[in-house]
Structures are given as C-alpha cells and as structure tokens.
C-alpha cells in the first residue's frame, strides 16, 4: 500500500498495487492519483529510440515546397523559426524554436537516457535530475500543435499557389504519434523507485523533509 496526498485536493489516501493499464482516481475530486502503463519499460525505450531517429528526419528534411509563377521555395522547421527572426521577431522566434525543436528534443533525449540508465537499479542520482527535466519539458513539447498549424498554413496557401508536401511533413506526423505513445507508456513513478535518492539515504516511506536540507 502506498500512501499519497491527492495532487488535486490534498486528501490522504492509500493506493493499492495497480494491475497493468489501470488508473487510480481520487474519490473526492476525481483527479488521477496513480497510473500503471501496460507493458514493460522496454516499450517506451523502443518508442524513444524510434522517436530520436524520426526527430532528426523531421528537422532536416523539407516540410513543404511552394511553387508560384515558376518560382519555387521550400522550408524546414528551423527555416520557419529563422524567418521569424529575420523579420524582426526574436521573441516569437525563440518561443517557436523552444516548442517545436528544443522541448521535444530534450524530452526524447532525457526519456531515452533515463530508461537506459535505470535498466539496472539503483540508477545514479543524475538520472533523477533528468526525470525532473522530462516533467518540465513535457507541456512545452507540442509537435501535434505544430503539425496542425503546418496543415492549416498549407490549406491557406494552397489557395494562392501550388504547395507540395515534403518528407519532413510525414516525419513530423510520425513524430506526433511517437511522442504521444511515449507519454502514454513512460511511467515516472516506476523510474523513481529505481533512482538513488537526493538525500543519499533511500529511506523507506516517510522521510523528514526538513532533515534533507
């Protein structure tokens, strides 16, 4: 039995060991208390390895090409960011670069490293730091929003000129599915049980928070 405080309403409760694929919810506020993904940690590992390869293709290959009156131009994800920068919008360029390139890259790299390093517990302390990093990056990694944005832009422009989807667009589509699958199968709670504690003691259930500092 694991005792937790609900993240949604702070109610103290016991969570029994969950079967694979199950989710425990708070009876008071119905927030999620714990989840246990199906399958082993091998699954997110395989997905993260695939995502790393697809990420490189999505970011180097041409997203789409435009041809208007005999002139042709193509763009990549980085190219979009650079165009914002070139037109004098460095803040917007930084935001787009972070959400479309940096956050997904760091998220995939950290998940991959964490899973590899925790294959043989106890994993060293720095693995915990990387798990923190994945939790921080997850909301900002939004390839699915970017893909929809690219498609809307494509439809808008298709009215004015001929647009040809490139290999980068298909790779981005695959990346969207892989990142969603990683998020569904990667279980930080499982990793935390394999990581060496920050205070170096790895005591069992309750610890004196004040003593840690």
């Amino acid at each position, binding site marked *: 039995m694991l*005792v937790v405080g609900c993240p949604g309403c702070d109610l103290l409760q016991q969570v029994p060991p969950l079967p694979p694929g199950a989710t425990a919810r708070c009876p008071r506020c119905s927030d999620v208390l714990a989840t246990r993904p199906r399958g082993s940690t091998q699954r997110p590992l395989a997905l993260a390895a695939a995502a790393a390869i697809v990420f490189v293709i999505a970011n180097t290959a041409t997203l789409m090409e435009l041809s208007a009156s005999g002139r042709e131009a193509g763009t990549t994800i980085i190219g*979009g960011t650079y165009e914002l920068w070139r037109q004098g919008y460095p803040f917007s360029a930084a935001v787009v670069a972070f959400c479309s390139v940096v956050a997904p890259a760091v998220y995939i790299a950290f998940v991959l490293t964490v899973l590899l390093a925790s294959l043989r517990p106890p994993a060293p302390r720095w693995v915990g730091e990387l798990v923190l990093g994945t939790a921080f990056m997850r909301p900002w990694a939004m390839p699915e929003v970017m893909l929809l944005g*690219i498609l809307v832009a494509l439809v808008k422009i298709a009215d004015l000129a001929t647009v040809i989807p490139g290999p980068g667009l298909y790779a981005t589509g695959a990346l969207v599915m892989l990142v969603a699958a990683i998020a569904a199968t990667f279980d930080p709670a499982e990793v935390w049980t394999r990581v060496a504690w920050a205070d170096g003691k790895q005591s069992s259930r309750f610890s004196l928070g004040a003593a840690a500092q």
Partner: protein
Amino acid sequence: MNAAMPTAARAGLASCRVCGLLCRVAGAQAVGRGHCPRCGVPLASRFPYSVQRTWALVIAAAMCYVPANLLPVLTMNEPGASDPNTIMGGVISLYTTGSWHLALIVLVASIIIPLGKLLALGYLLVVVQRGAAMGNSGGRRDRTRLFRTIEFIGRWSMLDVFVVTFGAALVQAEPVMWAQVGPGMPYFGAVVILTMFAAMSFDPRLIWDPRAQGDNAGRAHG
C-alpha cells in the same frame, strides 16, 4: 464535511510537486522547510504565493490579449496589393475560401481557448479568495475538473503561432508574392505563454481548502 477530511496538510505532510512522494514538513503551512529527499525539489504544502502569482500572470495575459487581437499577425503581399490579417481576419478568410472546419478549429484554438482560460482562471481565483462560500463538494469537484481541462487544452492556443510561422516561411516568392509577420504576433505568443504559466502556478488544492488556509505565507492569517 470538509473539515473532517484527512488532508496531507492537516497531517503535517506535503506531497512533492514533481515525484509525488509524501514527506513530513514542519507545520501545515510550511513553505521553504526543506527539500524532497527523493528528487530534491523544494517542498511546500501549497504552491508558494499561488493566488498572487496566478493573478499577476492572468492580468498580464489579459493586457496582451487586446493588441494580440487588434494588430495584424500576417500580411500577404502581392505586387500592388497587401492584405493584413488579424487573428479573426485569418479565421474569416479560411471560412470564405471554403474550409469552414479549419476555420472552426482556428477560431476555437486562437480565440475561444485563450479567452475561456482567462475567464476560468479569474473565476477560480475569485472563488478561492472568497473562501468558497458555495463549497459543496459537487461544485468543488466541477471546479477541479474545469481547472484540469484548462491545463490540458491550453497548449492548443499555440496553433496560430505555428500557422503564421510556417505561412510566412513558405510564402517568400518575392516579387510575385511574399508574406510578412505582423506586430500582433509577439503579443499573441505572450498570451499563450503567460496563460500556460498561469495554469501551472495555480494550485488546485486551494479549491478544497477551508477559508483562511486559502493561501500560505503571504496571508496565512488573512
């Protein structure tokens, strides 16, 4: 009814914000009383100054919301003609070119979600600050769900930022046709970023706290 519920705060415990480990802290209002022994982040029974921080971010986002919607975000240029588009203008031009489903998606993501987020966060903050007079647990449960929904869908507001970025990057066939990013763009990006930070700084546990426990440190006895 709520007064009898065993919460972590009342038991002198706090769950770590990142890894969820339940830790003992000194005093129910404890802030800055040590770090999680497992992952090392600072422990707090409630997010420090959650109400104040969320208000500040909501107000900043509301101020950016006005220029974000009034200024053009993308201008399409052809020789002798230029067509500046605001966010709403982009929705209308999508609608008139025949793809009403895409127009609807952009309308929801760029106009309805940011506005709804600001209104919903403002409502939650007011209710929390007034000590939730209408505090039956059904209402509180609905408010928790409302908050989780805001948190979940907020990122989709980024949609128009990507539409403008890739629209501008692709349409660079000067002198035939070229696109220019408009001054509304950074304001719109700021609205999305600020509302995402606002949702992250709001502590949903405040919805369930009895009055006066509503915020910590800043006004512990307020």
